[in-house]
């Protein structure tokens, strides 16, 4: 961020009596993302060698599960202590590497006792606790994503590989649109939000990975109930409509508004076209959410996810290339028709509604 922009915002807030005093960030410089990435990578590189040193010294810990649990508790405590003090990105990533070592030891001890869905459930709970407790955005992000991955494996082992990918959209949209509502927990919610987004996009972008895991992990004996694929797809469509309802609400547009009806109709059409390719809608939802919050990172994540999904969709074996070609053709045609309709119809729609009069004219 530029200091000039920061100063302008501070001045505007000061004029509105929201803040007072001098701009606290005037003499501070925030590093751009690529400098932070450099520090992160070198922090991880250094941490790997420190961990190798620790493991070389305390290699006997690996032989006893109880000793592993004690060691990883020590590592988690050390991580919390480092992350709780004011830090540079370099030491933050060093602490993250320590935490990862603790989690690896925990997994080693846990899975050496019992490799089944209960162990994955315990791991998921641990990750959820770490996401709540650890005072670091990145740690919360990774812990949330790992927790979702662990719970997905539990669901796969119970014969339900797809349910999490669609149901996660509800908390993501709810949390994303209320980003500035729970200010006291802003840091925590930010990490959890991005962790959920990355996990959801990964789940929907890699359908065939879920199927491989499904074949590997699940046995029919473990199934609780068998949920019909149509129900899963129904949840996905409901999630898309929920997203729109929330966005319309946040932008003060009533659901019985002509504009709202048109948007819901287009969403329903796109959702029906893409219900066999959920990665498309998942990426679009994140992009829309990101745009509403002026969040370029979320928009970027949605865009990358769409591109990755398009590449991996080619190799999805459940449907023939002909079906996939047809789906993409219909999607492309509908998108371009909707665009034409948007340009031609929307200004007319807006002119009949005083709320949006003149808002959409170029």
């Amino acid at each position: 961020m530029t200091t000039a922009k920061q100063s302008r915002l501070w001045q505007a807030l000061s004029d509105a009596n929201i803040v007072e005093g001098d701009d606290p960030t005037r003499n501070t410089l925030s590093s751009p993302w690529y400098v932070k990435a450099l520090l992160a990578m070198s922090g991880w590189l250094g941490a790997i060698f420190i961990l190798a040193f620790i493991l070389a010294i305390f290699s006997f810990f690996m032989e006893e599960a109880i000793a592993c649990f004690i060691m990883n508790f020590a590592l988690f405590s050390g991580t919390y202590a480092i992350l709780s003090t004011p830090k540079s990105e370099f030491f933050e990533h060093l602490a993250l590497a320590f935490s990862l070592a603790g989690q690896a030891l925990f997994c080693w001890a846990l899975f050496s006792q019992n490799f089944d869905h209960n162990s994955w459930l315990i791991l998921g709970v641990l990750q959820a606790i770490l996401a709540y407790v650890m005072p670091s955005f990145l740690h919360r992000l990774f812990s949330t994503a790992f927790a979702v991955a662990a719970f997905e494996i539990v669901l796969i082992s119970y014969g339900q590989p797809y349910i999490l990918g669609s149901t996660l959209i509800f908390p993501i949209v709810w949390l994303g649109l209320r980003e500035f509502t729970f200010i006291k927990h802003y840091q925590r919610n930010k990490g959890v939000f991005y962790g959920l987004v990355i996990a959801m996009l990964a789940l929907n972008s890699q359908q065939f990975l879920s199927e491989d895991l499904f074949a590997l992990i699940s046995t029919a004996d473990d199934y609780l109930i068998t949920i019909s694929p149509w129900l899963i797809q129904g949840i996905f469509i409901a999630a898309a409509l929920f997203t729109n309802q929330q966005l319309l609400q946040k932008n003060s547009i009533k659901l019985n508004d002509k504009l709202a009806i048109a948007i819901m109709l287009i969403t329903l059409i796109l959702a029906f076209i893409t219900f066999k390719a959920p990665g498309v809608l998942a990426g679009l939802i994140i992009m829309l959410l990101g745009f509403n919050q002026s969040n370029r990172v979320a928009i970027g994540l949605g865009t990358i996810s769409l591109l990755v999904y398009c590449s991996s969709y080619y190799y999805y074996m459940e449907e023939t290339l002909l079906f996939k070609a047809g789906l993409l053709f219909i999607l492309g045609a509908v998108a371009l028709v909707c665009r034409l309709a948007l340009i031609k119809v929307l200004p007319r729609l807006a002119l009949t509604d005083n709320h949006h009069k003149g808002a959409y004219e170029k």
Partner: protein
Amino acid sequence: MESSRGELVNLIEQEKIAKDNIKQAINIANIHPAPKAWFDFINQLLLWLGCVSLGLSVIFFIAHNWSEIGRFAKFALVEISLIFAIIVYVKTKPQTNASNGALITATLLLGALMALFGQTYQTGADPWQLFFNWALFILPWALIARFTSLWIIWLALLNIALALYCDVNTNPLSLFFTNKVNPLWLFIGLNSFIFACWHTLSLSRTWMKKTWAIRVIALVTGTLITENALLAIVDDYIIHTLALPVWGVFLGAIYWLYRKVSIDLFMLSGACLSGIVVLTALVGNGVIFSGDGAEYLLISIIVIGLGSGSAFWLKQVQQEMN
């Protein structure tokens, strides 16, 4: 109006704004887009979604090799789609989203047409020839359109063609060298040449000044040169290869271009990372591992020192910029 989201988040994280004033602060910072911005965003989103989906649908269709329709029908489908995309490009105003979208669609369709040709007539050509010819045919479009994204696609096609060529020819430099030479040198040569050309030409051409493009090219080139240097260290060919001197020259060139001639923190950060990785590999290769772990501690101290030093230097450069 431009949003000040990053700045607002910074103030919120420092607890400078009271909870009761958050809504007002959000409005002042222009977090939520205006209706016109929504209109433009959805307009662009639907356009690009439509263009890419249509282009990919044709590629998927050709790949399916549906025997129910004849070869002439398949050619007609692709060629008519291609002509339509070109007509859209010609009819729309240049350098607009619609014209750029049409051009990208046309590029995808051209690739599909060439794949269909190879599939139908079983020419026996190697896969690398498809990508090379694809890049060749879109070169005039890239020259005329001056569309940066198309140039990056063109560069990607060249690299893919080269990778596939090296798959087929295990000693691609046999024409120049009698012994086997790492094919990585071909990639380094190609991408370094492209980087040098782009940097030179961008000095006098506004449309080439997009920072993301030169950074992508520099990132690819730097990654290849760093990888080559690491391979030379790991394979213990430090003395017998030019990898490390070339790496040194590349870092020197980056320093001169982006510290002395102009300042670009991204390039300098990349150079620092490359330096840290290669120097760590050199030290790691030099120490003897006795098994008691002390060598790991030594290397980690060196890495921490290099990382901290890089951060300090980059901070100074950033302060100079501001």
